[in-house]
């Protein structure tokens, strides 16, 4: 289907780019991206992907908007406090760009539903805030052969990597298993500057866009780390672990499973 005049105008800054053009914009329109977690990382990622005209965006989160979220979760506004995050996010995305179909999935993602959830999407963005969820998404994406962007943020720091099936290491190659609950501080305990989520979540959106367009180099095989206080970005090479329990030569993990969640994470924000 041809773009309308309004769409050509809306996406004109994309279409001007030789790497995008009308053809690339069509790819974005046909693409389906799933964002797990409508928070500090998911909010900026969702805003940019919706504005970019990604045709179908899934957003999964079980929580309601809390006043303490608004310092960084820029897709939600003050009148949204108390509303389901996925509904608030859907309303904002649809207001920015009515071309986008948003699938709001109010759910805790777990081993029982994750394969179904990711199956209809081309690219997954991990915007979760706890290690059990990050390992679950990694395992599901490796097993389901789905490319995804992993990221984490805390205090003034953030980091991300991109997994593409068969092309490089997964999250579990680097970190074998989650640390015990409370062994490593979370944002709730340690704090985070909102703009760190903006930087890293926007980079996750950028990785999704490049993957959809098949342009440029992804962060496959690299961890990009960001230290806001030192104003330092570093791209660290990640070795492939042939003995990785999920993507290695003799995987022990053949189906997604849940790690026990820390009690404080179940009250989640």
């Amino acid at each position, binding site marked *: 289907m041809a773009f309308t005049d309004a769409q050509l105008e809306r996406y004109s800054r994309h279409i001007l780019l030789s790497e995008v053009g009308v053809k690339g914009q069509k790819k974005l329109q046909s693409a389906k991206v799933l964002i797990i*977690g*409508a*928070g*500090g*990382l*998911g909010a900026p990622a969702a805003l940019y992907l919706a504005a970019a005209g990604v045709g179908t965006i899934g957003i999964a*989160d079980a*929580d309601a908007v809390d006043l303490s*979220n608004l310092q960084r*979760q820029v897709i939600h506004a003050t009148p949204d406090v108390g509303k389901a995050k996925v509904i608030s996010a859907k309303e904002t995305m649809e207001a920015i760009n009515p071309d986008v179909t948003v699938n709001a999935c109010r759910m805790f993602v777990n081993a029982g539903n994750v394969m179904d959830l990711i199956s209809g999407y081309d690219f997954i963005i*991990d*915007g*979760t*805030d*706890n*290690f059990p969820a*990050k390992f679950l998404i990694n395992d599901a994406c490796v097993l389901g052969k789905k490319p995804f962007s992993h*990221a*984490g*943020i*805390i205090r003034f*720091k*953030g*980091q991300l990597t991109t997994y593409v099936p068969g092309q490089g290491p997964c999250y579990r*190659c*680097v*970190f*074998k298993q989650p*640390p015990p609950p409370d*062994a*490593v501080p*979370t*944002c709730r305990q*340690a704090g*985070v500057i909102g703009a760190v*989520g903006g930087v890293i979540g926007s980079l996750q959106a950028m990785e999704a866009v490049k993957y959809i367009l098949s342009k440029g180099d992804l962060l496959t095989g690299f*961890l990009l780390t960001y230290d806001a206080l030192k104003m330092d970005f*570093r791209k*660290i*090479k*990640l*070795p492939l*672990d042939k003995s990785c329990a999920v993507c290695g030569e003799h995987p022990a993990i053949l189906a997604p499973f849940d790690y026990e969640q820390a009690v404080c994470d179940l009250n*989640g*924000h």
Partner: protein
Amino acid sequence: MKITLAGEKKEYEEGLTVAGLIALQQVETPEYVTVSVNDKFIQGGTFAETVLEDGDVVEFLYFMGGGR
């Protein structure tokens, strides 16, 4: 001997192990850091016996669990 840690080349005592370097750097959660030397992961549990050599390129990779 010179070792490049996190992109910065510095002088260290001969015989320094990965565990020794972690201690010197006062890493916040030393038991949960992933270490690569010359683009190879060092197995957890072998940090104390892994001796670094002149010219080694070391990276510390940290858990970062936040996001929402």
